[in-house]
């Protein structure tokens, strides 16, 4: 391969070409599809912001373009080179000569054993730069993001925001032609986010760097030439200069906004008519077979028909919590007080890093607050011991963590049974309740399948079934739809609503998903 850099400079349009790309993650725990026909062109020097819900495939798109992951199908071309056809050596050389990559987690980018200036200088040295020149470059970049006085610190001595800024410096150190940045402002406060965005924009403009920026941050599109929305692994919308357009994929795939579908009353089927040059889409009746299936399927309901418990009363009293130690210490919750209504769906929202998961862990008694207290049915978790809090979880709480770890070699139902057995439920009753919960999350057909063999979304639903079956008045769920497609996200939203309304559960859900937020009876917004 001749110099990629020279080729890239000579190619003006497009620098990145993604054509109908599918990407399946093959892991020890099973396969899961993330990109499902994504198509995108990025011109040289263009700054593109990629938006979309969690699990939509944004990060996979960036990793695929960076050559860190090979597409399962389709073509990803960078500077004219087909990533899928390049070997590991070729992809490494492409990154070496062309790409700066900033992943979602700064810990995965910067060597924890190097001082920041060396960690930032490392990409330069890997490209043959002298140590002195590399460190000079590192100091220059660190100065530009306000870390000039901390260049001797180790990664562990930096705050989350500082780490992200250092990671951005490392990604820019070797003057890449293409910068791929995944949530560069996710852990930053508003002011820092503005600074980082400014650095990216200025580098892009000054040096003609092509930027692909993935973000949840609503302000990120402000620095971009173009914004694309990705959902369910496909590009759904492309917006330039404030004007958006739906993307028409190969074969005529168009993804309509769920709000528009809901407003038009379109559920599973639609009629499409072309009328005077316009396409008109209207709701259609479900297919006969589908009707039969839906009739046969049990209604979405809570696992147990007649709950014997009362919804949990939850109260937050001046709750404060900091994470990290020393210079890294960061206060994620400060004097948070509220009394969400019992037996309702409560949504916890806020940007990434605002403390949503921390709050849920405090509610579940998995962590203790620095100050303040959490009362569940009047019982103070601050004064309860670890055993008492664990006992409370067994007796009252169903909990779905953000990153659940169901047992891969057990079936879906078996995982639920195991949780119920842990709570002292007899084997027969546990099996019955587990079956009901698995059915409720729509995994009846996969009930006996090993969790390792199901997709990531299905595994998340299996974990949700576990939480639903185990809840006795308090259901705590963290981003339950982050890995789900739109339909299943809707189903989960329905389940959570029903759990609160019919199953006498107090449901507390941390989420970015507007569907769930929209159905919430009470919203706790963090970081606002």
């Amino acid at each position, binding site marked *: 391969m001749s110099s990629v850099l020279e080729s890239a400079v000579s190619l003006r349009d497009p620098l990145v070409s993604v054509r109908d790309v599918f990407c399946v993650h093959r892991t020890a725990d099973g396969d899961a599809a993330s990109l499902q026909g994504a198509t995108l062109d990025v011109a040289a020097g263009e700054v593109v912001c990629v938006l979309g819900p969690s699990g939509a495939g944004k990060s996979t798109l960036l990793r695929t373009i960076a050559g860190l992951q090979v597409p399962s199908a389709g073509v990803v071309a960078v500077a004219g080179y087909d990533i899928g056809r390049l070997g590991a050596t070729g992809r490494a050389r492409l990154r070496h*000569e062309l790409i700066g990559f900033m992943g979602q987690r700064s810990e995965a980018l910067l060597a924890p054993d190097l001082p920041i200036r060396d960690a930032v200088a490392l990409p330069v040295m890997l490209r043959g730069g002298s140590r002195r020149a590399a460190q000079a470059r590192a100091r220059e970049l660190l100065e530009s993001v306000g870390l000039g006085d901390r260049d001797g610190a180790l990664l562990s001595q930096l705050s989350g925001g500082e780490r992200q800024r250092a990671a951005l410096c490392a990604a820019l150190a070797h003057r890449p032609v293409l910068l791929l940045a995944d949530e560069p402002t996710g852990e930053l406060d508003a002011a820092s986010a503005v600074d980082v965005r400014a650095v990216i924009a200025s580098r892009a403009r000054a040096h003609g760097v092509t930027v692909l920026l993935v973000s949840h941050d609503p302000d990120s599109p402000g620095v971009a030439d173009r914004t694309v929305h990705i959902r369910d692994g496909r590009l759904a919308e492309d917006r330039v200069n404030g004007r958006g357009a739906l993307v028409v994929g190969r074969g005529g795939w168009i993804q309509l906004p769920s709000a528009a579908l809901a407003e038009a009353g379109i559920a599973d089927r639609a009629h499409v008519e072309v009328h005077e040059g316009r396409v008109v889409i209207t709701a259609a009746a479900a297919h006969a077979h589908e009707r039969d299936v839906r009739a046969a399927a049990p209604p979405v309901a809570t696992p147990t028909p007649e709950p014997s418990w009362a919804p949990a009363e939850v109260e937050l009293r001046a709750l404060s919590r900091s994470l990290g130690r020393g210079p890294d210490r960061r206060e994620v919750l400060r004097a948070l007080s509220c009394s969400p209504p019992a037996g309702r769906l409560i949504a916890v929202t806020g940007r990434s890093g605002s403390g949503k998961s921390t709050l849920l862990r405090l509610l579940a008694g998995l962590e203790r607050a620095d100050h303040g207290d959490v009362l569940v049915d009047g019982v103070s978790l601050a004064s309860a011991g670890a055993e008492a809090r*664990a006992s409370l979880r067994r007796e009252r709480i169903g909990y779905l963590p953000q990153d659940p770890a169901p047992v891969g070699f057990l079936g879906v139902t078996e995982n639920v049974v195991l949780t119920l057995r842990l709570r002292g439920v007899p084997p027969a009753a546990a099996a019955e309740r587990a079956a009901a919960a698995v059915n409720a999350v729509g995994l009846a057909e996969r009930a006996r399948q090993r969790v390792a063999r199901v997709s990531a979304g299905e595994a998340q639903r299996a974990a949700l079934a576990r939480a639903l079956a185990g809840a006795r008045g308090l259901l705590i769920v963290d981003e339950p739809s982050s890995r789900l497609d739109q339909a299943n996200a809707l189903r989960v939203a329905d389940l959570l609503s029903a759990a609160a309304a019919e199953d006498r559960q107090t449901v507390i859900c941390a989420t970015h998903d507007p569907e769930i937020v929209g159905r919430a009876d009470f919203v706790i917004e963090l970081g606002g």
Partner: protein
Amino acid sequence: MRGVATLIAARARRRPERWLLPALGLALTVGFLATVLSLGPLAGTQAARAVLSRLSSADQAVQVTLQGPLTPRARAAALATFRSLHMAPPASVLLMNPVRLSGVIVRPAAIEPLSAWSDHSSPGPCQPAYCPVLSAAGALGRSVFSAPGARLVVVGRAEVRSAAPLGFVPGDPSALGPSGPGGSQPPVLLTGDVAGLDSIAELSGVYRTHSWLSVLDMHALAGWQLAALERRLQAAQARLLAVSPQFSFSAPFAGLDAARAQAAAAPRRLLLAGGGAAAALLLFVVLAAGGLRRDQAAELVRLRVAGARLSHCLAFVAGEASWLCAVAVLAGAALATGAVAVLGSADGIGAGAALSHSLLTPIGAMALAGGWLAASALLTAMLVVPSARVADVLALVAVGALALALARPGSAGDPLSVLLAPLACLAAGVVVFRATGALLELGERMLHRGPVLARLAFVGLARDSAAPALAIAFIAVAVGLGGFALAYRATLVRGSSDQAANQVPLDALVAPTPGFTTPLELAPLARWTALARGSVLPVRRTYASFVSGGASVTVPALGVPAVGLPHLHGWRTSDGSAPLSVLARRLVLPGPTRVPGPELPPGARWLELHVRSLWLVVAVTAVLRAPSGAVTSVRLGVGFGPDSTVRGRLPSGHWELEALELTEPTGLEITNGHQNGENPAAATQAALPLKLGGMQALDARGRPLLSMSLSGWRGAGAAQAGGANPGLAAGPYRAAGIAPPLGGAAGPGAGPGADHGPYARAPGGPVSLGAALVSFAETGFPGVLRPVQPADLVPVPVLVDPQTAAAAAHGGQLQLSVDGLPVAAVVVGVLRRFPTVPAGSAGFVIADGPTLEGALDAQLPGQGRPDELWISTRDAGPLRAALATGPLSELTTTFRSDIQSGLAHAPIGRAVLGTLEAAAALAAGLAIIGLLVALSGALRNARVEDDLAGQGAGPGWMRAELRLRLSLAAVIGVVAGTVIALLLTPLALSSVQAASTLSVPTPPLITVTPGLALASWAAGGIAALVAASWVGTRVLSGRAGR
């Protein structure tokens, strides 16, 4: 690569503790292997020294001998030979042939310096007129030995300590003399002045040899010095012979060859055993390095994201592995250096010598460099190559190695057997590793409705089974290796015990002196019994011949008291056709084994016999037996004519008249014997009748005390006479269906007038009564007339080997010739082997000692006397003490415990066992560390832990679950290891044999499964691991307890 180097340096500097475990494992492995490699020469030296220590001082001497006159040139050449060998100045020896001085045959000799070889210094210069000498062979009866021009004056006595200078030890009865062992040597007159003695002109005509000798300091030789020494000796020999063909050169070539073979074998054996064990220990390195895999993989991801090329990534992985391995290898080498220095010093070889011939050599350095490269490659491959693929390849190798190992347990003598067992152990560990994941999942499913805590423990292990499987596999390997070491030890001990028992069936074996004096001749059985504080079995050891297929087969024949057979050590049920106690009972005759002759009254001083021999002059000898069993002969005289009387004086004491021996007078005997030897059908043979009767015991005054009837006596050998024994006829032999032709019974007498049974006649009775008619054949051999003995009536029951049994006639009848005497035998059992029978014998015949003694004595009185004693003792101390001093010290004594100890402590076998035990101990220690390290990783897996906590598991649950998880892993690992050990037990046999110096031990080794030891080892392993788990959990579960 500068960036990669910076990163590697920073990682090494910031968190060195992350490398601790793999570095520890690797350092211990390298240290262990290097120690084993270095111990090879040490063990070889010990083995060589064990061989050399068995050489006598004479066998250790380098000697140059000159036949003929001594010239200055010859002397210079001889002395130069020793200088070239870097040996001390040799002793000079002059040995003359025997010469008659003053009418006495003496042997002048000179040794210079005399004090080096005797207990006396030189008596002074030797001049022809006065040559002071020392007597080296006891009292001579005179002190001056002279001839014209030579006067040797004995001025004292000296004892020569070794046979080295003269070729014999003067005065030693076992020394080969003119008439063989024990024959007389002319007394040696010894001076310390070689030149003086040599210059006595009067003796110049006496043939002499000059020799120079010096003893090699064999005890200081190391194994690696033997070959060079042997080369130097050979070169010196060649140079010397080139100077003059009259020189001869002797050196301990054979001993050095044997020692060198031992020294060369030891490193190979140890390398095989230690190499295999080290391969098993490498599993720990894999285990510990596996813990680093996640950390290194994360760093690799960071590098890739930062734009590193593949070469950068490879350099990073290889660089980290290289420095880690370099440090570990150096640490291991330091450990080994210390160990070898200590062991070398302890063995007397010296730390410097031991190190300079093991580690501190170019080969040692290359081996360490090779180890560093191999370990670096292994750690690099672990990160670069998918672990599952590596494990699959290892599993294939494992299955192959196991199949090979189990298919060839009987490949005795194959040195690869030593390597195969540890390798198979390692291979089995890989199989365990691959099987553990499925096993854990199966366990979880079997507990579907069981206790949830147990289910969770299985889930915890199986959820991410790689680390637990590796830990379990390592435990299995450690336990398996330990179990194999136990089996090896048990087989070694059993083999040593069996070999020792094969040489000494009870606790001690006392054999005759070199001069063939038997133990019972030196001390009566009662004294031996008192010394032994146990039982003493008198054993007759001789040879028997029988005809098989037209050829005469000669085999060892042993007469062992049947009562002692069940007490033989090392007897295996498979050795005989029936249990030894049953066979012992079959050997015993239903009645007495010997019928005694008449007991002579205490006052008897003469024995008188009337002989009627009209055609033959016959010499009559009475054979007497003392109560102790000692046999003596009293010549009564020569009888000829119609009415001759022979009489002999009895020795004092109590005697039984066992038999009368008839021989031809000496001249005729010689003539007949000579002619018969040339032609058995010679005309000189004739069988002529005799009449013997009127046998009386007389007192000192010639008055008869006892008259004895010979009418029932039977002839044997050259004598033919029919007889009957009424006692036997009425006894058990008739009851057994055996009809004796004649009868007679023994009757002990206590004195004059006592009842002497059928032999007794009234004192002063007719002398013609009770006469025996004998037909005596002139064959040159004696004829025996004695009471009818059981051997005349029933065959001697014998146990024989299968080949001998096949030669027996129908009913097991076997006609033997024992010591040339005919003995009818019947085979009553078959044995595959019998202790003390030399290996390579064509077979063997075992009879009850008293029965065989009786049968032999019946043919030739005294011929059945026991040769040796098999002694069983509860306390060997007094026996050892008694055998170490006085006349008993001349006997050849062997203690079973000494042989067993010698065999069990054979340097090579002991070193291999030590290697295996050290490897097992090391592996067991590392297994505990590995278990904690591997499984405590699950505690740090926040995702799994949090998930479990989120489902309601409290700290108590978590702690209990973790402990149960660790205990489960320990139990599974130990059980798997025990199974591995049991599977590998058969290999212990071939391993012991491979490490042995004997290619085919006698008896053959058998597989020993040390069930109790294995069970203890397994139980101890589980207990240690569980205890370590509980202690470790207390520390590690802090996080879970929050």
